[in-house]
């Protein structure tokens, strides 16, 4: 006899027994069901046990195992029915070994880095406002990090001591001068070089500036930047987008204000503050894309305008979560990471 057939019969037997014991309405019907299934001589379980002899020897251990399981389930179904009909509750008596106050067995879960969480949140919000993520290299040339961003050679930002220039062999050859990007605006240039307006992107990632590490500075940090270039884009659009952004992030009615500032790649340039519980809190820098930048990527500033904004991820994350030392982000102590 094939094992599969035997097992199928066992299953059928278990199903029928459980059904009949559950259906018994008094001692008599229960007793006749007991004889039919558990009877010592003529019971169906006994018959099944005999069948087992016909199963191939190699399958016998498995068959035996299943038989025992089925026997157990039929017996307990009978016991339950008996208890139900003799007036006792169907519930088992309490198990004194069960302690519900023992700690649960927790799955071990990891956490995303808080900076990743912050960037993902900002990215999601900007995605809802129609901004698509764009990416670019971290090692850049001077054209993308400076020249196209209206940062001329004599600008202090280009000082070798303000940047991580690569020590490459081809010194003196301007085509092989590389540096670690000091801002994610480089990605804006790359996108605009490759595509005509409309442009609506955000870029984010690591940027590098030689600062001494202390509680509020780290020589590597993350930026997130947005860029929108199209016909008829104005500063009112910039303010409105940033307000939607802040409102979505903070989850309540907030107002935005602009303070004049100075960045080489935008003009007018502003610092952006949002109002939070009667305080104005610094959000980041923004402005209208400088006509020189538009020209540098082959756009006509008489035809299109654009706005750009950027903010430091670490600062935002620190303020949001009350982190007081930026170095915590790069130390990677689990006791820090698991809090977010």
């Amino acid at each position, binding site marked *: 006899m094939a094992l599969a057939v035997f097992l199928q019969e066992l299953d059928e037997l278990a199903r029928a027994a459980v059904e009949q014991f559950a259906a018994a309405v008094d001692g008599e019907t229960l007793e006749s069901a007991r004889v039919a299934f558990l009877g010592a001589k003529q019971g169906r379980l006994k018959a099944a046990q005999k069948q087992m002899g016909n199963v191939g020897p190699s399958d016998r251990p498995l068959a035996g195992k299943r038989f025992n399981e089925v026997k157990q389930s039929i017996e307990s179904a009978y016991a339950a029915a008996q208890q139900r009909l003799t007036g006792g509750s169907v519930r088992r008596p309490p198990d004194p070994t069960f302690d519900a106050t023992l700690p649960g067995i927790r799955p071990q879960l990891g956490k995303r880095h808080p900076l*990743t969480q912050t960037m993902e949140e900002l990215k999601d919000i900007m995605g809802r406002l129609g901004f698509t993520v764009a990416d670019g290299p971290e*090692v850049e040339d001077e054209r993308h990090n400076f020249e196209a961003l209206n940062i001329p050679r004599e600008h202090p930002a280009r000082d070798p001591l303000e940047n991580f220039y690569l020590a490459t062999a081809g010194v003196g050859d301007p085509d092989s001068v590389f540096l670690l990007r000091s801002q994610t605006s480089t990605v804006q240039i790359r996108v605009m070089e490759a595509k005509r307006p409309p442009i609506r992107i955000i870029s984010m990632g690591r940027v590098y500036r030689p600062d001494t590490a202390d509680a509020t500075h780290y020589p590597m940090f993350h930026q997130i930047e947005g860029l929108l270039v199209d016909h008829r884009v104005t500063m009112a659009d910039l*303010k409105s987008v940033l307000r939607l952004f802040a409102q979505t992030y903070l989850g309540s009615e907030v107002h935005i204000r602009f303070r004049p500032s100075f960045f080489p790649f935008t003009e007018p340039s502003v610092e952006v503050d949002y109002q939070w519980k009667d305080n104005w809190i610094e959000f980041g820098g923004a402005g209208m894309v400088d006509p020189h930048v538009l020209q540098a990527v082959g756009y006509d500033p008489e035809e299109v305008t654009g706005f750009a904004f950027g903010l430091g991820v670490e600062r935002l994350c620190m303020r949001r979560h009350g982190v007081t030392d930026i170095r915590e982000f790069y130390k990677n102590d689990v006791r820090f990471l698991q809090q977010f």
Partner: protein
Amino acid sequence: MIVSWNWLKDYVPLTMSPEEAVHRLTMSGLNHESSELVGDDIAIDLEVTSNRGDCLGHIGIAREISVLWREALSVPNPTPLAAGPSVHTLASVVVEAPQLCPRYTARVVRGVAIGPSPKWLADRLTTIGIAVVNNVVDITNYVMMECGQPLHAFDLQKLAGGRIIVREARQDEPFVAIDHRSYNLQKGMCVIADRERPVALGGVMGGTATEVTDATTDLLIEAADFAPLSVRTTARTLRLHSPSSYRFERRVDPHGVDWASRRACQLIRENAGGILAEGMIDVTANPTVAHPPIVLRFSQLQRVLGIEVPAEEVQRIVTALGNQDVQMNAKQIVATPPTWRRDLLREIDLIEEVVRIHGYDKIPEDVGVPMASSHQGDSERVLKITRDTLVASGFFEAMTPSLVEKEQSEEFSPWSGEPCLSVSLAMLRGADHLRKSLVPSILRVMQLNESLGNKDPEFFETARVYLPRAGKFPDERFMVTLASTRPFRYLKGVLEALVDSLRHGQCLDVQTWDHAFFAAEQAVQLMLNGQTIGYMGVLDSQTQKHYALRQPVVVAEIDFGSLVPCAELVPQFKPVSLFPAVRYDLNFVVDEAVRWADVAKSVRKAAGDVLDQLEYCETYRDPQKDGQNKKRLLFSLQLRSIARTLTGDQADEVRRSVIETCQQHHGAALLV
């Protein structure tokens, strides 16, 4: 820039409260940092952006106030009375380095009496935090803080030959500054020398040799314009930043040089006496060409700002800011920017001026920006799935610096044999190499957590490595790197789950790989669809020691870019079988050298498409019963057909075929 509230009153009526003043200044470009009461005065600290050198003096700030409050600005016109012989008979100036010093002027005052400054002057300097020295030095500082033009007073009698030579420094030329420290000068720096030696560092600091002392009677007053880049480099190289260098770096008003010189001489005569020599030595290399007028089209204001600004308001602002020859018609306004505003060159510059004075609060924050679609790229989506899977598997995400120390950079990198790229400055203690693998970094994170008593840490990081390519942009590759103290099979399982989560049913393969970083025969190349996507292994005990790790660690690094094309981002439904399954447990004795993957491959082949699941259970060794170098492989086989119920005979037939294949190909003996 710290300004004195009382001092500002010299130039503009202060009809507003200090609080209101700093608020509006903040909102128009001079960010208020702090205010402090000093005696009966207030010291107000305003942040001046690098394009606004004109606001590095009280007059500049007063001008902003006059424009904002529509008040008149009154700037004195100093006309010191000259009575001595011509200045040219007393001193001479040669500019040998006009590229470093576009303009140098000198006036001479003789017979002064050095003494303390009058109280009003001393008080003002004290308010803004400038040390009071003596009347002459204080006056040069006062005039600098008044108009933003730095000045220097030399003791004329100590200037050898009464001669000023402006030249480039010689390499390693020594110089003793007013701070009495010695500096080694370098080429490219601008020195003011007399006939014998350097007496000042142009635009940065004066020298001890010719400084004004109590015994000084004759003065040469320098008012000059020095090249911003050279001043900045000099100040930075020598770590010698001064209020003077700060201002030259941000450019001074070329026409303000003469005003400042006259103003200083006037104040010296009033407060220190002396006789002013006739005339001024003025060496100007390139007389500055006046800026061409700027045309501002009214239509551009609306186009850039999104608001209308009334023409009269535009005209008022442009005029009040000091622009000259302002002409307006219905369409545009034309104006010539003042010499102190070297940042005004283009139409957009004037637009910014108009809006910052008119007020950014006039720009609405609720205009309807058109909607646009945004698309999540494949990489972005695969990265999200990857992070989700790893976090759900218990891994914490780490972030470590891209720059590492030289030794660390070479510890491990299977991706490139080239030496790491390096940068000219170290980012953190000696970290000046761009990493080629995240593995050394993540192992340090493991070590740190172990040492902090954090139990069984598990980490991953997603970041770039930078593989050198001669003369070209490096190959930046995004890596996913994992480390765990759990067994090899556990980490492998996480990676299997990862590739399965990217495309259900996708299997990770491995190929043995030998690398000294890892324990012998406990390292593999990770393969997906026949491609190597990464590496994984158990650290060799030497490696473990190198990283000071107490527990054995297994690491893996995967080139994320090679995962992206393997993902099925829109999974397609495949029907599941509605028929019952048949399950067999099998227990084989095989040689120790037999690999599970080979057995599994044979089983799959033998079972064919009714194989529903092949589940490895365990390996068991019993040399007593099975002999040396033997092991038992226990696994279960679940068979199920998509089309019908398998009969017992059919299922048995498959089982038999599996057993035979395993016997033939792997010498496997079935245990019953």
